[in-house]
């Protein structure tokens, strides 16, 4: 019920929204919870396990009961806290975890079976017969569990991430946070003030009190006005700081447009739904306030039962009385304010019950002292409570119960770096451990200081202290006059009695469950949590953990301090995956690298494939070709018979210069490069320090102190980091400099019998066998551009790689392919490149898969005996020199099917196909149009000793089981006449 003229949002614009299909009117500034309460709606959701009817418990993000789904279709957002969702015109919200409706939920039958569904029941049953678990029990349990539902469609809304930096991050904008921000702001420090709520002010928006003789909210507005005028202060509302990480890194979630109607214009189409902030703060003031805790008593979970502070917030901030006959039940002085404010607003008080015999008297209401609430009635809305005191029990008609078991400081962020909070007997609550998070100072209620006066003072003091760590001098402003009423509490965790008294409302954990866990020796607080699921709901125990461990302490005869706490871990509030993963949806997961030939290739029918971050052409489909194999076969034959052009720019290229360049190369490669002549290229092999092959490639010597190394595409980054490691860590004495020139040069392979003619026709210099013998390199000019030419081959054909600065790559590729086509050749892609290299027995990372040695590859001869090199020592371990190791061979099909299959395993023909007989596996296969049959490379135990043998090749997944012949891995032109010719 809305009280006319009451609250801070009165006079706001009216907004229409719907809940469970019914239209309601709310007011600008309302949360869904305040608007529903204003409309007399209390039944909002159902609990997790027993599907108990539930209402609104709190007025903040810790709400465990009033979780709803917002939005429709793909935009459906489950598990939104009604206490946090602001209403807007057209808002659509629904209850969850109920069927057919929140009022009539079939699964509420669970509640009747509750005696059999207590703590840990599932560990003790559902075991017979075993196969029924997956078929029956588990599906039933899964369907019953869970809260809201996802839409099932991909989330296509925009989200974003951002970084922020500051001297001082102030978390929370209540009295402590505002004073901290003001103090730091006036001192000129770089300040971020982050507030989870849509409006700054914290509890000052919910209380009827004065600061400096003004209503508290007026003081808030004045402070905010000053802060807004300071360039060095950033105010962030709707921004929850979610995690504290090392070296002052904080995460925060900003709800950018939860409070706005869905975008309907182009202008707002890109508006992010949320922004995930990474804040690097040199110091922090945590002023996150405190969270009020319920009291456990029988049936304390009914709609209409709320925390006392929430009732006050709805009344004072939103002008809503959550009932017409309200009862208060408390164990502390602070809660009496609820009765005082209700009376002042003219709301009828049914009773004020305080468990303390020495509770203070109220001015405008009478207090029943030394009494407790021991039961309630009213299935979908509270109807009565039962009062118990020395004179017996009495039922009281009431439609709303405001309860308070005291306040828990919001210590959560102080625990994110593993510190445990400290028990404070005076306020019967845990308070932060000093120094829990380096650079963080805690102030106000979060620090256990529960008066406004103390919060203001600590906020200012915390800012001075925090900035002091940074060498920034700040002065605390004059302290405003404010309420300093004592808090006074006498602990009351659970009212003794029969029946079920809830601790964790959402997960349906009761006092009995915790007691039973203790009885079954789940006495460690972690065991109790895991056995009962206490504290594992969406509020992560914010409402219930302290009471639960008090109950556990009682059941095990220990103090609360001895019992200890479970760990609060990030995030402080549940955080959308989409926000933390912003930018990665669709194609955004990793950057895209494009070749200079990309556009030209597409025009020529290229089918692209991802190679690491690059896109490369797999093959170029010509008219009439309907399968990749047709294109691939043609391209292979084109290279063997005419000339082919392939963009090889993805290979890593590293420019190496300096007096010690040769020394560095001799260190990194197994073979010698100091002896390489200028103008020549050499193939090299490099090892990891554990002796296995890291990478291979060619390196050209362009000058006395100048080399250009090429790496495989896959290992380019790894090799660059390795070079840096060697030159900075292992051999900082070497005077050598290197840089990646991969993107500087566009480089194209031109391969085939007509390659020389093609190149010679294009470049200014004369190209023939004498000027450019096999493995020569040099500078050339092509089309007026200075480039480089390398006579190297990965196809076994007479071939070149021609390189030009990347801006000319597109034009040169186009020119090369056009010229090649005129000679019966053309462009070729990765598929043909792969077949060509298998025909020659050249290896790629299909073979260099991190588990092979030079010995395995038959390349032990490449490890120079004249020098040592990186990785050589461990490559010579006994186990790596076994003849029986799996070693590189070629395979030719022998069976009728003429098939080979990559990933197949190899066996002796007469042995059974089982692991113990496994001899090896196939790394690469392809159809060789040159030879007219399939060919493959394999790693085979003692492979080189088996040349000519027959082995059985089995690939269960492709249904291939065939014989093949073990052959030398070089299938084509083993003498190398073509490449040299």
């Amino acid at each position, binding site marked *: 019920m809305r009280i006319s003229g009451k609250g801070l949002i009165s006079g706001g614009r009216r907004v229409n929204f719907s809940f469970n299909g019914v239209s309601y009117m709310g007011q600008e500034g309302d949360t869904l919870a305040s608007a529903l309460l204003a409309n007399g709606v209390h039944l909002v959701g159902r609990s997790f396990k027993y599907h108990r009817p539930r209402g609104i418990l709190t007025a903040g993000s810790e709400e465990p009961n009033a979780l709803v789904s917002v939005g429709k279709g793909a935009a459906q957002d489950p598990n939104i806290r009604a206490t946090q969702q602001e209403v807007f015109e057209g808002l659509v919200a629904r209850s969850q975890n109920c069927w057919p409706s929140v009022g009539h939920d079939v699964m509420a039958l669970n509640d009747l079976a509750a005696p059999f569904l207590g703590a840990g029941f599932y560990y003790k049953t559902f075991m017979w017969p075993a196969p029924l678990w997956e078929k029956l029990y588990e599906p039933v349990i899964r369907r019953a569990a869970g809260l809201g539902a996802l839409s099932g469609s991909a989330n296509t809304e925009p989200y974003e991430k951002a970084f922020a930096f500051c001297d001082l991050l102030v978390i929370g904008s209540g009295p402590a946070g505002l004073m901290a921000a003001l103090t730091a702001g006036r001192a000129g420090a770089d300040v971020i003030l982050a507030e989870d709520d849509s409006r700054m002010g914290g509890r000052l928006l919910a209380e009827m009190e004065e600061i400096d003789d003004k209503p508290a909210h007026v003081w808030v507005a004045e402070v905010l006005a000053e802060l807004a005028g300071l360039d060095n202060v950033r105010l962030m509302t709707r921004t929850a700081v979610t995690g504290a990480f090392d070296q002052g890194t904080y995460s925060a979630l900003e709800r950018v447009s939860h409070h706005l109607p869905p975008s309907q214009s182009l202008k707002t189409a890109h508006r992010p739904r949320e922004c995930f902030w990474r804040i690097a703060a040199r110091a922090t003031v945590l002023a996150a306030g405190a969270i009020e805790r319920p009291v456990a008593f029988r049936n304390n979970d009914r709609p209409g039962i709320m925390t006392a502070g929430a009732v006050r917030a709805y009344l004072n901030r939103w002008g809503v009385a959550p009932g017409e006959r309200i009862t208060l039940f408390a164990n502390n002085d602070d809660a009496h304010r609820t009765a005082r404010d209700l009376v002042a607003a003219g709301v009828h008080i049914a009773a004020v019950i305080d468990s303390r015999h020495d509770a203070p008297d109220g001015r405008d209401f009478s207090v029943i002292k030394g009494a407790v609430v021991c039961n309630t009635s009213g299935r979908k809305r509270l109807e009565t409570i039962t009062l118990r005191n020395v004179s017996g029990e009495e039922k009281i008609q009431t439609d709303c119960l405001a309860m308070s078991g005291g306040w828990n400081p919001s210590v959560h962020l102080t625990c994110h770096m593993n510190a445990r909070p400290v028990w404070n007997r005076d306020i019967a609550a845990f308070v932060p451990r000093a120094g829990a998070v380096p650079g963080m100072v805690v102030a106000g209620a979060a620090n256990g200081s529960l008066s406004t006066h103390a919060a203001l003072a600590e906020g200012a003091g915390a800012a001075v202290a925090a900035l002091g760590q940074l060498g920034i001098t700040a002065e605390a402003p004059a302290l405003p006059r404010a309420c300093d009423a004592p808090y006074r509490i006498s602990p009351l965790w659970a009212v003794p009695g029969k029946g079920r008294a809830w601790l964790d409302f959402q997960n349906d954990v009761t006092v009995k469950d915790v007691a039973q866990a203790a009885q079954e020796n789940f006495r460690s607080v972690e065991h109790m949590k895991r056995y009962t699921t206490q504290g594992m709901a969406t509020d992560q125990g914010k409402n219930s953990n302290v009471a639960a461990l008090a109950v556990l302490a009682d059941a095990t005869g220990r103090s609360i301090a001895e019992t200890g706490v479970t760990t609060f871990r990030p995030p402080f509030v*549940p955080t959308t995956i989409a926000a933390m993963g912003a930018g990665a949806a669709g194609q955004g997961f990793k950057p895209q690298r494009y070749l200079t030939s990309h556009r030209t290739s597409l025009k020529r029918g290229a089918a692209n494939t991802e190679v690491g971050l690059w896109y490369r052409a797999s093959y170029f489909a010509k008219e009439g070709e309907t399968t990749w194999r047709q294109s691939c076969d043609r391209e292979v034959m084109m290279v063997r018979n005419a000339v082919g052009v392939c963009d090889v720019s993805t290979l890593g290229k590293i420019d190496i210069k300096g007096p010690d360049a040769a020394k560095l190369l001799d260190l990194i490669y197994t073979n010698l490069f100091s002896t390489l002549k200028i103008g020549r290229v050499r193939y090299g092999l490099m090892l990891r320090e554990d002796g296995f092959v890291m990478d291979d490639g060619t390196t050209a010597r362009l000058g006395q102190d100048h080399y250009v190394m090429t790496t495989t595409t896959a290992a380019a980054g790894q090799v660059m980091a390795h070079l840096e490691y060697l030159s900075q860590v292992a051999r900082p004495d070497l005077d050598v400099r290197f840089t990646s020139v991969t993107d500087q040069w566009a480089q194209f392979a031109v391969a085939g019998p007509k390659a020389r003619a093609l190149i010679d026709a294009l470049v200014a210099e004369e190209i023939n066998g004498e000027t450019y013998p096999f493995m020569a390199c040099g500078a050339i000019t092509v089309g007026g551009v200075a480039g480089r030419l390398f006579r190297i081959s990965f196809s076994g054909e007479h071939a070149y790689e021609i390189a030009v600065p990347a801006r000319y790559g597109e034009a040169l590729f186009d020119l090369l392919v056009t010229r090649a086509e005129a000679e019966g050749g053309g462009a070729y892609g990765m598929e043909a490149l792969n077949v060509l290299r298998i025909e020659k027995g050249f290896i790629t990372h299909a073979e260099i898969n991190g588990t092979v040695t030079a010995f395995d590859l038959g390349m032990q001869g490449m490890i120079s005996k004249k020098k040592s090199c990186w990785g050589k020592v461990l490559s010579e371990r006994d186990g790596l020199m076994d003849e029986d190791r799996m070693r590189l061979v070629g395979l030719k099909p022998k069976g009728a099917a003429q098939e080979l299959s990559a990933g197949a395993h190899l066996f002796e023909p007469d042995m059974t196909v089982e692991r113990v007989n496994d001899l090896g596996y196939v790394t690469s296969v392809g159809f060789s149009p040159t030879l007219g049959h399939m060919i493959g490379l394999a790693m085979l135990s003692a492979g080189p000793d088996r040349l000519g043998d027959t082995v059985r090749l089995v690939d269960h997944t492709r249904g291939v089981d065939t014989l093949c012949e073990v052959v030398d891995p070089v299938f084509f032109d083993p003498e190398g006449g073509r490449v040299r010719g």
Partner: protein
Amino acid sequence: MGISGRFSGWRVLKEGLTGNKGWTPHWRDPEPKREYDVVIVGGGGHGLATAYYLAREHGLRNIAVLEKGYLGGGNVGRNTTIVRANYYLPGNSEFYSHSLRLWEGLEQDLNYNAMMSQRGILNVFHNDGQRDATIRRANAIINQGDDAEILYRDQLRQMVPFLNYDNNRFPIMGALLQRRAGTARHDAVAWGYARGADQFGVDLIQNCEVTGIDVAGGRVVGVQTARGPIKAKKVALAAAGRSGQVAALAGLTLPIESHVLQAFVTEGLKPVIDHVITFAEGHLYISQSDKGGLVFGSYLDFYSSYAARGNLAMQEHTMEAIAAMVPAVTKARLLRSWGGIMDMTPDGSPIIDHTPIAGLYLNAGWCYGGFKATPASGHCFAHLIATDRPHAAATGFKLDRFRTGRGLMDEEGTGAQHNLH
């Protein structure tokens, strides 16, 4: 039957009707004795399973498990609960195969429902190279006698239509399906073994940190603990995450670095993911718990750490991988993140072996793979401790393989840098 009695549906009914007053402790809290035949250091999944199988398979009774905190408080209580047998290198293949078979009878064996759910695991691959490597793996699994199927894009799409097939930076090409793989309720595995071991008379001693290992004449003779010295004929180390620290008590330096691996769970949601799904790109793995939370993880944080808490950059990477691969679930909200301490070895595979000290046995180096290994690790370690010979399914887990280079099991081919597995 031990202290807690036998569990059954009937007992749940009976206790429910009588106010659940008859439940008794699942295990005792005994005072440590002065001497044991075997002292197991570490009351996690592997230590508890070892104790259970030492008692059940080898008839030993005078056994203590010493735990510095609470039972099951280490990695068995902080993982992503995945059970599978899809390794491909000899040494690993037969071991994880053995483990999966033990999993399949575990609940009846222990009389404890660990909610072992053989919901199937899908290892998604994205390109030709990954496909061929996956097929090599699938064949190895089948050759070992376990199940594996390759599903290509269209088949996969029928089974899990909500993945990003149409607009993915790394298109989904297919997946390896192992139907017998799945998940289990991690805590319950530890509790089930603890209760089982307790029923055989094993002393489970919590809050009992081992502070020293006593060696005389090259032979272990006992341990020093926070609760006093305890003599032992044999001492078995199963303290994953702290293996290096514990082994150092006996003067051993291990080939292990400790690294943090994060895990994540979202708020509860109605069923959306029915399998365990892993992705070769981004190293993401994700499933949905019976309670409705999406459970997932990806890489290590990559730096040495004993902090059991994670780094924001890796959290973001993990969420980015979900946004890329499973965009239908990104409205789910991350509820909790935590970290486990991983024993990372130079080849990514574990160690179950003797040590140079007689009577001192080592079970360590589980890297990411410890949870799924729990039954076989306990089973094979118990065999080694009881017989001084390796179990047939665990002959490959030698401590000296790094020195000799013989029998290295580098499934990912990333080499001897500990954090790259």
